[in-house]
């Protein structure tokens, strides 16, 4: 150990040369920095009390150099480990992004396969009909029907890809100030009429003492509308949706959209924000709604969580920086 330090010039701040491979195999010991040097320094101070002046000074310089070197070495080790940590973080984010893209692409492929399959079959059926020697008026009607089904499925594909483009569109939030309950109420009014026809009531529980929030208002509107639509669709027959706003700790606010709907089975809860996860029948909804909400809320610097009990209902909570 002493040999290592003797080799070093404390001025440059370079530690003893240890190969990266060796460093990775065995973490470099900390005890020289935390125990040995401070201990030596303490001994040196005590000794200086008894030693003649010149010797004491030499001892002081020597110990001083050791301590300076120790501090510089520790600093460089902390720096190196910080750099490695942030590089690992970046790699993790990148691989998470790639995983998400991979999931998204396979999701699209699966989604589009269904309309493609219908189109392929209709085309085969049309080919069969056109192969008949004496086409009848019924055949003509069938041909028209198959053709319009193909057109319908093309539209379905368009919706899938357009939703996807929306999903991946890079949107930088544009912050503006607005009262949170105003943003909520505007969207609730849109849903209320339709909801009323179905026997669904909407109750408000707004904290009007909240100061105006600073956020991308149209983006937040999309999230609220999405949650309201989900709440509405979750309710079979009559029911109630409750919307509330409240403070959520220092500098944060929360929005809750709760419903008395069918609820979400516990095994689906972890997947609920995944792209393309849906419990709706084919052709109805693409399952991008909640994952879009999640993406937007993320971009707004917030978080979205869900609590649910099958048979009782669900509650989605969005927290945002105020």
């Amino acid at each position, binding site marked *: 150990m002493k040999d290592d330090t003797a080799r070093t010039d404390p001025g440059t701040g370079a530690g003893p040369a240890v190969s990266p491979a060796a460093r990775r195999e065995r973490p470099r010991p900390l005890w020289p920095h935390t125990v040995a040097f401070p201990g030596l320094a303490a001994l040196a101070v005590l000794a200086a009390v008894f030693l003649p002046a010149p010797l004491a000074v030499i001892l002081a310089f020597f110990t001083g150099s050791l301590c300076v070197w120790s501090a510089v070495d520790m600093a460089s080790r902390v720096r190196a480990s910080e750099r490695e940590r942030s590089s690992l973080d970046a790699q993790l984010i990148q691989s998470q992004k790639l995983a998400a893209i991979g999931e998204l692409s396979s999701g699209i492929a699966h989604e589009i396969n269904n309309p493609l399959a219908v189109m392929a079959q209709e085309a085969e059926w049309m080919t069969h009909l056109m192969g008949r020697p004496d086409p009848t008026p019924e055949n003509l009607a069938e041909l028209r029907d198959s053709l319009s089904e193909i057109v319908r499925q093309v539209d379905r594909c368009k919706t899938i890809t357009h*939703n996807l483009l*929306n999903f991946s569109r890079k949107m*930088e939030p*544009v*912050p*503006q100030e*607005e009262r949170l309950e105003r943003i909520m109420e*505007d*969207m609730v*009014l*849109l*849903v*209320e*009429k*339709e909801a009323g026809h179905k026997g669904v009531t909407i109750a408000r529980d707004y904290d009007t003492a909240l100061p105006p929030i600073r956020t991308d*208002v*149209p983006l937040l*509107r*999309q999230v609220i*509308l*999405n949650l*309201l*639509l989900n709440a*509405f669709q979750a309710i079979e027959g009559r029911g109630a949706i409750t919307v509330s706003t409240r403070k959520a700790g220092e500098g944060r606010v929360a929005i809750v959209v709760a419903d008395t709907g069918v609820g979400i089975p516990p095994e689906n809860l972890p997947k609920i924000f995944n792209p393309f996860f849906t419990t709706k029948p084919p052709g109805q909804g693409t399952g991008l709604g909640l994952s*879009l909400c999640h993406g937007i809320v993320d971009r707004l610097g917030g978080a979205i969580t869900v609590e649910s009990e099958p048979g009782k209902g669900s509650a989605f909570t969005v927290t945002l920086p105020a």
Partner: protein
Amino acid sequence: MSIRILIVDDEPDFIETMVKRFTFRKMPVTAATSGIEALTLLETESFDVVIMDVRMPGKDGIETLKEIKKRAPLTEVIMLTGHASVESGMRGMSLGAYDYVLKPVDFEELLDKVRKAYERKQLNEGRHSAD
């Protein structure tokens, strides 16, 4: 502050009322009675905020919104609707509409939304000029 407004609605009574009220506030307003007319106007003029009905014969509000966002992406669009339809509301919002409002609309509220939409346009323009 003179915000250049374009109103698009196939109901002439509604247009007339709106034009009167905006003119009274000294806000320059142009009217179009269809999506096509609106897009034609946009070829030669630029507007800050478009107020547009969702249901119009011919090119409907959503289709026109798509076109507006393609040609003049910084122009903010406020959609108006006589029937609340959550799904078309979501579609409009996800296509970039600034807001979605039920008719009959309170003029003061609409004015406030127009101002906020204009503010967003300015913030976006400031941002883009920095690129």
